[in-house]
């Protein structure tokens, strides 16, 4: 573990040097491949002083390194105009280190520490490199929603520490904390992070106002922090969860349906993608809270699949934005006439978004539907509506941006650059090819 940590820490001085942008990106790709060499045979692998990783954290660390690498690839615009590029690189490295630490520490309190800590580089990304005045409000919403919910989590953690005298995640499964207030304190933070329906207001703002790298990391990993936290925290809250989970489940499922309807009313591409993230995550929350194995498995796969898919779609929205400088659907239409090769990528990522085969999202959705219907067949109604409207808005986005006449006010711009195609390909490849090796995701 130390080797990866020191690898990343020593990349920080590299960020201060001139013209090291692509070097940093390349080194991150190398880190990805080095990390993949770790074995996954045991419960806690690569055990060191306070860190180890097990199955779920391995996949999520891989996803975070991958997305950080792709973030750099997509932000070449910042490099070209030299918009505080050194600080940007440091920001991303700090974020990666904090995320790596979040997923690999074995202590629940340290997890909280780095969970909160990863908020600061994200805030800096949004407010620093975003391009609209609304980003201030977006950053405030992000900070305060997360902080407001995670301060009770801090209280709950200290309560548990005083009761149990240990915060090691491995030991928590021997205890049974069956208090309602503790339960609500513990899971509220993760539900807000996920986000659940009523507390999701920060997400459209933050995703839209962030630059492409901020959107990618938010959609790719930061939402999954909530899922990961839920998966860890529910270990010792099982009894009370079984009694009370229907509240969050019903809110999530109904909310997913409402949000998929709201997607049809959006005129901003990024806002549509952000709302679709909430919709996917609502099913994931439901899957985790049901607490059967299908739900566990399905939510993990869906987290990874959704991370890649949403991040790819934000890249696509940015490709359009860099040319037309607008995210509005009324301006970004008829793109197939100009960039037909990009239409294929739009279609591939859109079809993965609506869980068409053979993407990871399909496997995740099948597993989650299985777990939810096995919990209660009434959830079938909501799931049918959510799946149907998911397809609806994905197709709406695809057809509106790609087909039809183009906006007459477009003057001239260049077609796709191979860096952009490589970026999209690297998003699409794990998403659609990993289904051939599904036992890689099977949590043992």
């Amino acid at each position: 573990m130390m080797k990866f940590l020191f690898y990343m820490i020593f990349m920080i001085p590299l960020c201060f040097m001139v013209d090291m942008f692509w070097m940093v990106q390349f080194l991150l790709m190398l880190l990805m491949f080095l990390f993949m060499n770790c074995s996954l045979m045991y419960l806690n692998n690569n055990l060191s002083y306070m860190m180890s990783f097990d199955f779920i954290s391995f996949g999520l660390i891989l996803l975070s390194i991958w997305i950080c690498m792709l973030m750099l690839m997509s932000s070449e615009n910042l490099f070209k105009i030299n918009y505080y590029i050194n600080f940007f690189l440091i920001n991303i490295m700090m974020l990666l280190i904090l995320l790596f630490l979040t997923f690999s520490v074995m202590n629940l309190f340290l997890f909280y520490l780095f969970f909160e800590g990863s908020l600061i580089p994200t805030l800096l990304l949004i407010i620093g490199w975003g391009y609209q005045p609304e980003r201030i409000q977006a950053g405030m919403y992000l900070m305060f929603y997360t902080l407001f919910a995670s301060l009770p989590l801090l209280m709950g953690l200290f309560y548990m520490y005083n009761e149990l005298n240990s915060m090691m995640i491995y030991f928590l499964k021997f205890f049974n904390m069956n208090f309602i207030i503790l339960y609500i304190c513990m899971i509220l933070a993760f539900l807000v992070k996920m986000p659940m329906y009523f507390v999701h207001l920060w997400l459209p703002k933050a995703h839209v106002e962030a630059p492409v790298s901020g959107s990618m990391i938010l959609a790719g990993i930061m939402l999954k922090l909530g899922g990961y936290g839920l998966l860890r925290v529910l270990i010792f809250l099982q009894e009370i969860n079984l009694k009370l989970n229907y509240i969050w489940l019903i809110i999530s499922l109904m909310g997913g349906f409402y949000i998929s309807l709201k997607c049809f009313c959006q005129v901003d591409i990024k806002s549509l993608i952000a709302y679709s993230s909430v919709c996917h995550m609502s099913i994931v929350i439901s899957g985790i809270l049901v607490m059967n194995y299908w739900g566990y498995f399905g939510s993990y796969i869906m987290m990874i699949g959704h991370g890649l898919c949403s991040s790819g779609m934000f890249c696509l929205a940015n490709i359009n934005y860099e040319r037309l400088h607008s995210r509005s659907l009324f301006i970004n239409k008829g793109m197939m006439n100009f960039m037909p090769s990009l239409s294929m990528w739009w279609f591939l990522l859109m079809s993965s978004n609506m869980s068409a085969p053979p993407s990871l999202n399909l496997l995740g959705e099948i597993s989650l539907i299985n777990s939810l219907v096995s919990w209660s067949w009434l959830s079938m109604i909501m799931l049918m509506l959510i799946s149907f409207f998911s397809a609806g808005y994905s197709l709406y986005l695809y057809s509106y941006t790609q087909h039809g006449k183009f906006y007459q006010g477009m003057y001239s711009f260049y077609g796709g650059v191979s860096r952009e195609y490589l970026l999209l390909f690297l998003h699409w490849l794990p998403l659609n090819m990993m289904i051939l090796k599904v036992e890689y995701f099977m949590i043992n």
Partner: protein
Amino acid sequence: MHFFMNSNKMFFLFILIFSTMISISSNSWFGCWIGLEINLLSFIPLISNSNNLLSSEASLKYFLTQSIASMNFLFSILIKMILMKNFEMIYFISIMINSSLLMKMGSAPFHFWFPNISEGLSWFNNFILMTWQKIASLILFSYYMNLNFSYFIIILNVMIGAIGGMNQTSLRKLMSFSSINNLGWMIFSIMISENLWIFYFFMYSFLISIMFFLFYMLNMFFINQLFINNMNFMIKMNLLINFLSLGGLPPFIGFLPKWIIINFLMMNKLYLLTFIMLMSSLITIYFYIRIIYSSFMFNYIKMKWFKIFLKNNFLMFINLFSFISITGMIFSTFLYIY
């Protein structure tokens, strides 16, 4: 710093430090009172500046309030000595003594003088007012504490510090409200143990010192002055890091004292108090972030001719301290290797 150029000020500064020592290390209550009086008397020349009407007014107000508080203190310790024979813990007197000490500190509900006076002092004087002046009063407070009363005071402090700071644009008043907020945390820490309070106090004054030094260098007193054309990027970053650290956000070092205090709070099962303190620190984070908007946003509308020139360029020190602020959490773990 112009203080070290002026021998009068140096003299009074020296006496100020001495007076606190007298106050904390005395055997009887009288000694404490003497220390407090000398503290008051030696601080007045430090802050009164005949060139500036505002600061001489501030010094006058300071004199008035602090002398009332000292009189109160003297009166209550005399009553305690005469009526209560000096060893019992009677609540009425403890409330009197604590109230007078709280007024000396500038804690709610006796804090009304504090933002006003802050507004009239220079940054260095503010620093002394917010850090050093609290030592004597807090330690004396800990000698004769009344727990339930203290809880009430803590809640008042913390909430007033948070809500009062929301509507300010003057940096000095803002920092005074944040000082009131932190005073709440400090009162709780001194209820637990003096050692803990020393740690919190040290962290707080470390962070405050960086901040005030920065503001002194930039010669800034209002939030809108931060949006300046040629602000150095490193200064902006320093501001950002230190304010976030002061707010208590992980992974900066300002989180560490709050962390320990929350631990003790939960250990003593004071759940509601914890909740109130945490939520109010959330509000303080809000107005800290509002101050540092200018350093978050890399480009904002700047006026062409508004430029600053740093007063004494001690940027080195600031950078060093900010580095400690970022990495302090990691290095502090080295203290706990077992």
